[in-house]
């Protein structure tokens, strides 16, 4: 395997953006390329993740290319997935030896539509979507089942929210933040019981860009390269009745394949849009109690769909680069109820 390092990372998140995709993306890509110390022309591959369903405007990802340095023509690819999967494609491309470096970016404008409703389109169009099960309702079904199986309470969920909101206070890119204890949160009304507003993601608009470089060259580009030591993604069946919603088998396998348990984990960034999903993921990834979870506030506090998973990888890498730990786990998910999961193990030089 070739060693691949994350050498730069930039992001922006806002509750509502009136700029178009190019206008949102351009400064973020620029910042990531500038801090990678690479010339744009030196970057061998460009890969992105986005979904036009979010803003209801077709081919936004093609127009976005105007803002990412696509002239002279570049080697480029796109996934209709969170940008974390674009990073995986770039990592595989680098493994083949075809390129040594890549720019990976993602963007999403969730505020244009009703995101929870848009997500209903991910379900079976013949027998399920017709009932318009919005994402919050489906997550509520999963949360209740999980609490029953794991013996967890609404307080456990509120504790996740309270900690995330508190941590988000020191993250300028979080859109939900605050110092509210679980007691206060539990006094709020339900949204889709047992979930309250604080259990559901703070949707946001934004973009993320990461530059990765293989081998020795990475060491010349940044003070402390953060190496991708394990990377795997798996998928569970889409039918909600076809799997145990209280577990995330695909996350368990991805974590094992990525080698999460091979050494001590200092911190983890988990892309759990809903509070109970963080608890499911901690179990699936086998994270010890002393692992620092979502010091950024996580996807709960800035759910820029399509880039929030890539943000988890970037946020984790940034903390390792800054010396806050030596080994981190980053996770991305897609689909209802953690249907698809990616796990990335990162280690500092």
């Amino acid at each position, binding site marked *: 395997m070739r060693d691949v390092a994350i050498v730069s990372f930039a992001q922006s998140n806002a509750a509502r953006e009136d*700029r178009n995709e190019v206008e949102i993306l351009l400064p973020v890509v620029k910042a990531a390329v500038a801090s990678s110390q690479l010339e744009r022309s030196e970057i061998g591959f460009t890969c992105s993740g986005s979904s036009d369903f979010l*803003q209801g405007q077709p081919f936004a990802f093609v127009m976005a290319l*105007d803002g990412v*340095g696509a002239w002279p023509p570049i080697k480029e690819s796109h996934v209709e997935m969170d940008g974390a999967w674009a990073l995986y494609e770039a990592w595989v491309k680098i493994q083949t030896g075809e390129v040594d470096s890549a720019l990976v970016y993602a963007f999403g404008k969730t505020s244009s*539509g*009703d995101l929870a409703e848009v997500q209903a*389109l991910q379900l079976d169009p*013949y027998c399920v979507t017709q009932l318009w099960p919005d994402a919050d309702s489906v997550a509520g079904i999963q949360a209740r089942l999980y609490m029953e199986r794991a013996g967890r309470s609404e307080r456990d969920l509120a504790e996740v929210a309270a900690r995330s909101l508190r941590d988000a206070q020191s993250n300028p890119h979080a859109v939900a933040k605050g110092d509210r204890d679980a007691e206060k949160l539990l006094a709020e009304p339900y949204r889709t019981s047992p979930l309250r507003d604080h259990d559901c993601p703070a949707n946001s608009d934004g973009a993320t860009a990461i530059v990765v470089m293989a081998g020795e060259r990475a060491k010349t580009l940044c003070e402390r390269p953060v190496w991708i030591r394990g990377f795997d993604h798996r998928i569970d069946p889409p039918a909600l009745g076809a799997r145990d919603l209280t577990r995330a088998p695909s996350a368990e396998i991805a974590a094992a394949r990525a080698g999460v348990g091979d050494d001590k984990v200092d911190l983890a960034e988990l892309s759990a849009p809903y509070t109970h999903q963080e608890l499911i993921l901690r179990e699936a990834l086998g994270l010890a109690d002393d692992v620092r979870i979502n010091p950024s506030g996580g996807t709960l506090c800035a759910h820029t769909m399509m880039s929030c998973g890539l943000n988890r990888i970037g946020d984790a890498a940034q903390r390792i680069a800054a010396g806050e730990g030596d080994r981190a786990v980053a996770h991305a998910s897609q689909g209802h109820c953690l249907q698809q999961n990616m796990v990335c193990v990162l280690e500092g030089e």
Partner: protein
Amino acid sequence: MSDLPNALKSIVTPVRLEYDHSAGAAATGFLRGLTQKKILGARTGPGEPVLVPPRGADPRTSELAAELVEVSDKGTVVTYSIVRVPSDNIPFELPYVCATVLLDGANLGFFHVLQNCALDEVRIGMRVQAHWAPDDQLTENVSSIRYFEPIDEPDVPFEQIEEYA
């Protein structure tokens, strides 16, 4: 082909999603300009190419093109095609001419339709001008320019527009 007896061939599944759209800075500038009979392009800075319609960035440099610049509603045909394919979306009688017009002051061809022009007279280098909708029908829509039509000005030699053809 399937020989499944009584196969269900279609189902009705209405989908309705509402979007609170935002056009972004570049398109907002361009579309609002149309309501005042102005064609606005954008550039990354003085002396840089003027892009019409603007989409936010100069695709050759990927620099933010945020400076709005008014260009002329007169221009030169850099290429065209005669359309004989009907479409419910198009209010013109067949056949008609669609063209790329290099507006005076712009550095990017602008796509639109030509009218009041005999099919055998349309040519590369021909000078044309926008025909605007009546003032009370100007909206944030590119059809506020109803069409382009020939004007009485000498043709522009191909060499002068070759770069944009």
